[in-house]
């Protein structure tokens, strides 16, 4: 047993000594991750070109590239992206601000929690898409109702994240704040808000994800522009390539927005002492 264990221990020492043990193989990681999609794409492209498949329902990669290029050249894609991102951006801003404010309020005050949380939980039980008819009735079929839907989708994960994060704040740190003379408001500002920052960012990220889901729902239910409209239009025209391009655009937009959020939060979370960045 001890003989078998020895090499492991030596390997452990070697890892500890090397300066950047974890991130040395980044380039290889990329290559490895790309093998599967790239080879599938090449195989499909070959299959269609060789006449083994028609590619009508599942266009090959180069067809998609052509379609995307045409959409960009005509400026259509940019218009759709701008419309969608405006809706997500504004809806996210409203939902995140409201969710954070409500979460802080109910988290920091027991009275507020007992007053507001039951009602909010009841509202949460309604599947958010079920609000669509009411929003359209109240706010019209144009932008406002779409924004409201996105904001609603963002609100709940942020609210719940902030509320539970506040309740999880270490009592011991609160005591430090009290011993050194912080007022209740000071405690929120100097202890609670920094302490919940990691969970808050995580909640914002899931809120952003839901924001994209809800913007898509709003656009599918009636819009004259937006990436979701492109998707619906492709279906009605029987153009699988447009649909796939729209799907890929959604993936890219989601990924970029999420990365921006992570990038913005990184300096704020520098202090975190976790095994691996929680993000």
């Amino acid at each position, binding site marked *: 047993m001890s003989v078998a264990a020895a090499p492991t221990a030596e390997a452990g020492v070697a890892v500890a000594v090397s300066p950047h043990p974890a991130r040395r193989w980044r380039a290889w990681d990329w290559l490895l991750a790309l093998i599967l999609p790239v080879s599938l794409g090449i195989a499909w492209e070959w299959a269609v070109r060789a006449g083994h498949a028609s590619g009508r329902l599942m266009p090959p990669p180069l067809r998609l590239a052509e379609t995307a290029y045409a959409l960009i050249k005509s400026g259509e894609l940019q218009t759709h992206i701008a419309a969608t991102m405006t809706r997500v951006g504004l809806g996210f801003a409203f939902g995140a601000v409201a969710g954070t404010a409500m979460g802080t309020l109910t988290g920091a005050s027991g009275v507020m929690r007992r007053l507001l949380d039951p009602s909010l939980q009841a509202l949460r039980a309604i599947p958010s898409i079920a609000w669509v008819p009411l929003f359209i009735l109240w706010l019209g079929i144009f932008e406002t109702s779409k924004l409201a839907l996105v904001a609603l989708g963002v609100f709940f994960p942020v609210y719940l994240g902030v509320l539970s994060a506040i309740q999880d704040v270490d009592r011991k*740190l609160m005591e*430090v704040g009290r*011993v050194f003379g912080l007022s209740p408001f000071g405690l929120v500002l100097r*202890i609670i808000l920094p*302490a919940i920052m990691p969970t808050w960012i995580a909640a914002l990220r899931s809120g952003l994800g839901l924001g994209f889901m809800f913007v898509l729902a709003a656009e599918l239910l009636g819009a004259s522009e937006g990436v979701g409209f492109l998707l619906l239009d492709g279906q009605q025209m029987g153009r699988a390539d447009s649909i796939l391009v729209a799907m890929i655009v959604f993936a890219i937009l989601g990924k970029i927005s999420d990365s921006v959020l992570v990038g913005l939060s990184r300096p704020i979370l*520098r*202090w975190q002492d976790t095994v691996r960045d929680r993000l």
Partner: protein
Amino acid sequence: MTHLAVQHVSKFYANGTQALADVSLHAGEGEILAVVGSSGCGKTTLLRLIAGLDQSSAGAIAVGGQVMHGTHPTISAVFQEPRLLAWLTVAGNIGFGGRRLKPAERDARTEALLGRIGLAGYGKRLPKDLSGGQQQRVSIARALIGHPGILLLDEPFSALDPFTRASLHDLLLGLWQELKPTVVIVTHDVEEAVFLADRVVVMRPRPGRVSETITPRLSRPRDKLSPLFDAAKRRVMQAIDRSLSEEHRPPPRQAADGSSLWW
């Protein structure tokens, strides 16, 4: 610097546990009081009441002659764990204890204290990059930057190795000599109590009471190897033994000052 008087304080927790029963003690201006006693005899409870983090069920606590309610600007504390705010730098954490100071004054004192605790140049680091002993030193600096009248310490060194502990004893005494706060330190370590304290309060449990108070009567700086030091240690240990055997007997009629009974 500030007189502290605990007068007939009792504490019942919500679950019915009586943690303290009629505890009275006082600490003169600039005096160092050590509190020792077996686990669960209410030492932490006592410090939390003095710090204003919890409320007594009966009795009063007076600071500088005035009965206090809640936390008090002149009382500061060092906890068993460093309890640094992870999102603030080392300098920010020290400055946190001096929130009532003007920024310039606070920065100057932070800088001075960083040097004092042997962490000059560490100001911009984050707590996670410090060792346990270094973190505890930062927490001591945080507690002292506001020049508190009363400093409370709850087993501040129990998680540290003997070398670090000895150096922190010297650090604490050095800072105490400069600022002369009244100090109440809870400890499990008899040697630590005798080394630091002007008087050692021995408590006994179920419910927590003051058993007796021992006065080491040693001049400073103290020599841990001297026979007088040993004798003082022995007196405290005997008092602890008595407090443990008393557990099984009804409480004595005679009040706290047991040292005169035996010596």
